């Protein structure tokens, strides 16, 4: 059975090779000296891969394990390979982990670079370790540049017997201070830590703070409101300076107290430095961080006038909100349109990401190179501006040159198209008539349409009713015949000839059960009919005499005429027979 199921799974599931992709993530982007963190490298849509070599100055990186994961989703099966590394920092500082490069099936793929901040051991310790709950603001560096996002953690420690939740639910911490902006908060993480021998649950909010002006940036505190359920002691021992006993079996324990608490963290100071004006490139748009740039053109073979997609990817670590479309080199051949962009975040707060720009480009003459591109940013580690250049890609655009009077090539467009740009596109242009025609209202919201439906509905209903009446009439036909027969026999009861009147009476005795069965009973003798009803004895005897007389008349040939008294008696007997239930 299991083998059959496995076979079925193999038949049904379709293996989709998908796009090769590698993603590297750190279990925590900051730590302390000698405190290891985990590096996960996930290679998607591949069954087997060799663990890549990763090294970085100041970090001891050790390969730990490898696993392969198969998942089937909507009938499509994919394989991912995961490599786990353990990174142990050897000294404090900010370390850049280079992109993890893999060569798979002749194709080179790489992840985005990562940054690990290593702090001194003392700075990572909570400020108030003896309290039942307290907050802590962790800022990994004490200086940054304007526009440089600094990842921070807001940690809220709770003794592990305290039940807590942010209040109101979904409320995010408020960082008190001026001259900075905070990034979007991802969902907070929770973990358990031991501080000075006491276990705490820690709620960790990650975000990034970006200074917007040069000078001293004071983060006074980060406050968060919580609803707490705190264990209460009935008899606290004298001199006991804690909120409750550490022992879960304390005799003094008497339930939980519900309370609201506003927990503030410690403060921190960051020196925000101005970006240097010397050497600032003309196309610098405010991006601060460490970035790389790659590009491609699709398709690589096209005709003159066909739109191509020039795709430029900026990946790295930094202020992606300020990463604008790279500037394309001016060219009279290329007509460049407004770029669209999309961001794929590689970490929780979006500092590590890949931003992809799509430029629709149209060549108006044969050409064999795509436009070159350049992108500038400020590298805070090197403390200088860096300009990345993307070399033109080899392509083939063939065909006759386009002549477009009035249309101007728009090289080097990185902002919205100018309203003055009036393309001559060979449009159909005529002055239209003022005829009102068509409607924006869907026909299913038009009452006229539903009224018209009444016509076929009436036809269908007429047919259905006619069919029903016909069926009913067919079902009642035998009953109608019996009723007509009974009426005829009733008339014959008054006949003077004994044979006719007695035969009619006997037939009426037979007809009564036949009518009562509504035609279901096809034939019955008079004697059988008499057995079917509970009637008075004298009526039964009288009817038996009628049957006997009728037999004598018919079979013995006793033709005679009935008297009026006999007629009356027979009529009364038949009435009594028919009225009997």
């Amino acid at each position, binding site marked *: 059975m299991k083998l059959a199921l496995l076979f079925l799974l193999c038949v049904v599931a379709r293996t989709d090779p998908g796009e090769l992709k590698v993603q590297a993530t750190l279990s925590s982007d900051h730590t302390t000296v000698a405190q290891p963190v985990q590096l996960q490298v996930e290679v998607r849509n591949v069954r087997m891969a060799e663990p890549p070599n990763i090294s970085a100055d100041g970090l001891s990186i050790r390969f730990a394990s490898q696993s392969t994961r198969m998942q089937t989703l909507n009938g499509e099966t994919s394989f991912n390979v995961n490599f786990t590394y353990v990174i142990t920092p050897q000294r404090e500082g900010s370390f850049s982990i280079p992109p993890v490069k893999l060569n798979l099936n002749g194709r080179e793929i790489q992840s985005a670079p990562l940054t690990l901040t290593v702090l001194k051991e003392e700075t990572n310790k909570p400020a108030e370790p003896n309290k039942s709950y307290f907050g802590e603001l962790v800022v990994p560096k004490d200086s940054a540049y304007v526009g440089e996002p600094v990842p921070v953690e807001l940690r809220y420690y709770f003794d592990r017997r305290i039940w807590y939740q942010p209040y109101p639910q979904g409320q995010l911490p408020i960082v008190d201070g001026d001259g900075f902006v905070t990034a979007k908060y991802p969902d907070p993480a929770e973990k358990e830590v031991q501080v000075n021998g006491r276990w705490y649950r820690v709620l960790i909010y990650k975000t990034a703070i970006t200074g917007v002006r040069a000078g001293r940036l004071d983060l006074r505190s980060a406050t968060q409101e919580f609803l707490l359920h705190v264990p209460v002691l009935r008899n606290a021992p004298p001199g006991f300076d804690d909120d409750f006993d550490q022992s879960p079996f304390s005799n003094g324990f008497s339930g939980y107290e519900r309370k609201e608490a506003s927990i503030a963290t410690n403060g921190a100071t960051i020196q925000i430095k101005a970006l240097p004006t010397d050497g600032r490139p003309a196309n610098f748009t405010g991006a601060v961080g460490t970035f790389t740039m790659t590009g491609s053109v699709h398709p690589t073979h096209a005709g003159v006038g066909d739109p191509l997609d020039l795709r430029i990817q900026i990946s790295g670590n930094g202020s992606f909100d300020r990463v604008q479309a790279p500037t394309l080199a001016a060219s009279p051949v290329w007509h460049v349109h407004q770029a669209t962009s999309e961001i794929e975040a590689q970490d929780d707060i979006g500092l590590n990401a890949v931003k992809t720009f799509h430029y629709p480009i149209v060549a108006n003459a044969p050409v064999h190179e795509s436009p070159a591109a350049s992108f500038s940013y400020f590298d805070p580690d090197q403390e200088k501006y860096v300009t990345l250049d993307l070399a033109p890609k080899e392509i083939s655009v063939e065909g006759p040159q386009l002549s477009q009077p009035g249309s101007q090539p728009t090289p080097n467009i990185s902002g919205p198209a100018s309203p003055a740009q009036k393309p001559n596109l060979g*449009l*159909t242009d005529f*002055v239209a008539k003022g005829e009102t025609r068509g*409607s924006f209202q869907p026909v299913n919201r038009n009452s006229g349409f539903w009224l018209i439906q009444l016509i076929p*509905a009436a036809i269908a209903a007429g047919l259905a009713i006619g*069919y029903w009446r016909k069926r009913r009439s067919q079902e009642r036909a035998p009953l109608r015949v019996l009723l007509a027969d009974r009426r005829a026999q009733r008339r014959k009861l008054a006949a003077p000839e004994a044979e006719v009147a007695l035969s009619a009476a006997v037939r009426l005795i037979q007809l009564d059960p036949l009518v009562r069965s509504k035609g279901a009973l096809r034939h019955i003798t008079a004697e059988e009919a008499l057995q079917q009803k509970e009637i008075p004895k004298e009526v039964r005897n009288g009817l038996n005499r009628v049957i006997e007389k009728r037999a004598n008349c018919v079979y013995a040939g006793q033709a005679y005429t009935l008297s009026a008294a006999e007629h009356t008696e027979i009529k009364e007997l038949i009435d009594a027979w028919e009225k009997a239930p």
Partner: protein
Amino acid sequence: MGKGAIKRLLIAASTWVFLANVVADGAELVTLEKANQAYREGKYEEARANYLQLISAGTAGPELFFNLGNIWLKEGEQGRAILNFRRSLVLDPNFAPAQQNLDSVLHSIGSTEEHPFYQWLRLRSDFWFVSTAIFFWLTAIAALLWATIQHFRTAAKIALLVFAPFLVLSLALTLWIGNGMKDPNLAVLVDQSADVRFGPAASSRTVVTMGAGQELRLATERGDWTFCRLGNGLSGWIHTQSVERIMPK
């Protein structure tokens, strides 16, 4: 009040209604003529204002939207041009000049009509709905004839075999297409570009940047922002003024 007074009152009211209609029609014709004249003379701003006035008065012909699209295009507003060409095609899916100009504009901004056959089907959503209704009744009546009248049994059976597949096909298309391009929540980006963001605020992070003329489906509105869903499955908040519904208000 005597009978004569009532009669005079009725005559006066009828005359007033008649004259009011004549004057209104005259005003419309004058505005249309003025709009066309301004268009011919290259006074696009004036022509645009007149066309917009006519459209708000209910003169919603495909040609008016077509002209309006051309005016926006001459003023470099590709997004609004695409919107009006689409409106023109909603009113008349077979209006070839509008389709031709729409294709030209899309080509000029490096885009193409995504899934042209699907778009062709969407423009004709009413046709599929009406076809479904017609084939439903034809199939139902054929089935009733087959069941009720022995004499028509063979003919009804043939009719059933013919109509039922058409009913299934048109019903499937109706369910797939829905209201098509007449969906009241369907909108077009009229700005040259706009960011779709994670939250209804300019400071919120960008999900994707959209280009002029791209389609999106609007959901809830909050302040100056509207939650929207894009064709590629992404969703987010966009500035309400950057988009305009295909079904004009």
